[in-house]
């Protein structure tokens, strides 16, 4: 790819920009972005196989059970997609601000606030028709989550506070707010040993995708990822965001309103995570309680980085991690591996994919493909 960029602009913000992971573009370049992560993934599986062999387990069994648990049966596929659903949305919470060069890792907080806001909306509308309630829940959930991440964006823009730290710390504040409300003002008095809000009601629950045991959050995740991709790579707004992400001073020089970009992108990012929280309430839990803090927001960071912050790549990566999660149970049951072994695999994949970054642009085979 580097060679394709005209020499005069190679060092400018625009030149930097064109080196960002593009989907489409030249075929060779696109192939590079598929082949290298695939190789990294294969290498991780080999390493993990060696790791498991050291514990006296047969790596072939391992691969078979992983395949069976994640993709081997129709049930396994549904298991995988169910686990992937929230991850697509929370990954966008990291991937969108990354276009601006911001590292937001507080998707968990936006998810919790989104869930709380959505639950509040449902409980405030006891008489409304279900469709209206669900739309209201989605809107409040997205606004709640969006404003939560806007806090980090605003702190960064107006006060120079590091957005990584502030978004992380806001997770703990969100959790504290959730615990306070769930154990105090919003508590259902009949939830004795598991403090929870009142239930939003069976009628208001969003069901599964027809014919599948996977909730609608998965579809919304895909739509959100597609919209994000179009926004970032095919609109003027997205182009401006990437220019600002490439070189913030250059962006200011050409007259871009960087503050506005930061706040809008942060809002959209938080809205995605907030929607994930809303879906957890409306499709899974039926109410808000501490169960919602299940780490989807943190897993989303991993997904976003593995997808190299590309909103479209977030979808297959979330499905991959969902599959690893789904197969983790089978590894525990059949091979007697501890739960942590799945974390080891996730860690190995993470390291391998990040390390494979250095391979981009080094192999002539892709350049020939490009010409």
């Amino acid at each position: 790819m580097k060679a394709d960029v005209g020499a005069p602009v190679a060092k400018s913000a625009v030149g930097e920009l064109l080196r960002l992971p593009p989907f489409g573009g030249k075929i060779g370049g696109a192939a590079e972005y598929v082949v290298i992560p695939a190789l990294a993934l294969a290498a991780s599986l080999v390493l993990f196989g060696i790791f498991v062999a050291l514990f006296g387990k047969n790596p072939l069994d391992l691969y078979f059970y992983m395949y069976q648990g994640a993709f081997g049966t129709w049930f396994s596929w549904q298991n995988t997609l169910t686990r992937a659903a929230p991850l697509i949305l929370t990954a966008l919470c990291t991937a969108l601000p990354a276009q601006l060069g911001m590292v937001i890792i507080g998707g968990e907080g936006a998810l919790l606030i989104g869930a709380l806001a959505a639950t509040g909306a449902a409980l405030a509308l006891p008489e409304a028709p279900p469709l209206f309630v669900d739309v209201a829940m989605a809107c409040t959930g997205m606004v709640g989550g969006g404003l939560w991440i806007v806090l980090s964006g605003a702190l960064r823009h107006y006060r120079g506070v590091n957005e990584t730290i502030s978004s992380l710390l806001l997770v703990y504040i969100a959790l504290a707010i959730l615990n306070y409300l769930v154990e105090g003002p919003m508590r259902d008095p009949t939830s004795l040993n598991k403090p929870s809000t009142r239930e939003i009601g069976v009628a208001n629950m969003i069901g599964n995708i027809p014919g599948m045991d996977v909730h609608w959050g998965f579809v919304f995740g895909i739509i959100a990822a597609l919209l994000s991709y179009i926004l970032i790579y095919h609109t003027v707004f997205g182009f401006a965001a990437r220019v600002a992400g490439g070189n913030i001073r250059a962006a200011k020089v050409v007259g871009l309103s960087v503050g506005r970009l930061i706040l809008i992108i942060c809002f959209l990012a938080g809205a995605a995570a907030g929607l994930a929280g809303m879906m957890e309430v409306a499709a899974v839990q039926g109410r808000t309680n501490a169960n919602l803090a299940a780490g989807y927001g943190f897993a989303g960071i991993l997904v976003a980085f593995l997808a190299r912050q590309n909103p479209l790549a977030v979808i297959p990566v979330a499905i991959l991690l969902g599959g690893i999660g789904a197969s983790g149970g089978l590894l525990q049951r059949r091979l007697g591996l501890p739960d942590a072994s799945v974390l080891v695999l996730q860690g190995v994949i993470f390291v391998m994919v990040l390390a494979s970054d250095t391979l981009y642009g080094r192999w002539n085979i892709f350049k020939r493909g490009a010409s």
Partner: protein
Amino acid sequence: MNFDTISRRGILKGTAAFTLGTALPLRRASAKDATVGFVYVGSRDDYGYNQAHAAGAAALKKMAGIKVVEEEKVPETDAVEKTMESMINLDGATLLFPTSFGYYNPHMIKMALKYPKLRFEHCGGLWTDKDPKNAGSYFGYIDEAQHVSGVVAGHMTKSGKLGFVAAKPIPQVLRNINAFTMGAKMANPKATLQVIFTGDWSMPVKEAEATNSLIDQGVDVVTCHVDGPKTVVENAARRGAMVCGYHVNQAVLAPKAYLTGAEWNWEVLYPRFVKMFTAGETIPNFYRGGLKEEIVKVSPYGAMVPAAARKQADEVKAGLMAGSYVIFKGPIVDNKGKTVIASGVSRGQTDPELEKMDYLVDGVIGATS
């Protein structure tokens, strides 16, 4: 079972198997054959809540014809639904024990409705007539064992100050705190108990801080109600304080400091349930019991516990075993001076009022909110 041969063939078939999407055939349970699935919220070796259940599962593995499948660290989200379904679809499990409180509603209920021919048993939930008939809940009156522990703690404390590291101020926890305190006050009427709530079930850092701060205040016997008491037990022992355990026997972690403890006895209950299940009998939907029913037990006393303490604790234990002894017997005053159980009122273990407990008894320093 020729599972491995199927597996190998499967791996060779590769994508063929994938497109077919065939589940491995469900193993039909014969009269004495069953696969039992256990789901834990934490790790199986946490020296606490989950280990107690895993010990129960281990007891099942010794039974002929019983296959046990286990999964740990499963969060209380739809992940647990999928874990149960995976055990059903891929392992042929017909009896499931999702052991964490948050698994009950909506997750286990949803699965029980979806698989009406299978049996689901939940620890800690409150099964009601509205819930599916193939679901059940069981729990133990572990406050009985806490009460006996409290008697021992009351005898052993020199400062008269006891400490309790607790997760959340919910009825089950408050009941343990109150039963422990009342036991201690039987041995030492002047004893007080300082409680610290950490806010969640597994917060090792906060649990360690709470333990240290209790000991800094002069507390010399510490106990707890958190998922993994390891942190509390080890820290207290390191600081020279004595400890009463919870969930499982933690004497191995602190042999010189471990007085006694309140333990679950799932290794007796689970084989009992599985025998009923394989014999085709119905497991009661709502199952509760204490020391007498062997659902809970008291850890063996540590060597440092003197004869007088053992004697009084054994007497209380004998009373509880005989069913003649009631812990929550009025008058009971809470730590704000309000009478919560009037004189002459005796609240036995099955009294539903106790499931709603929202107070700390006199002698406890701390607040529920």
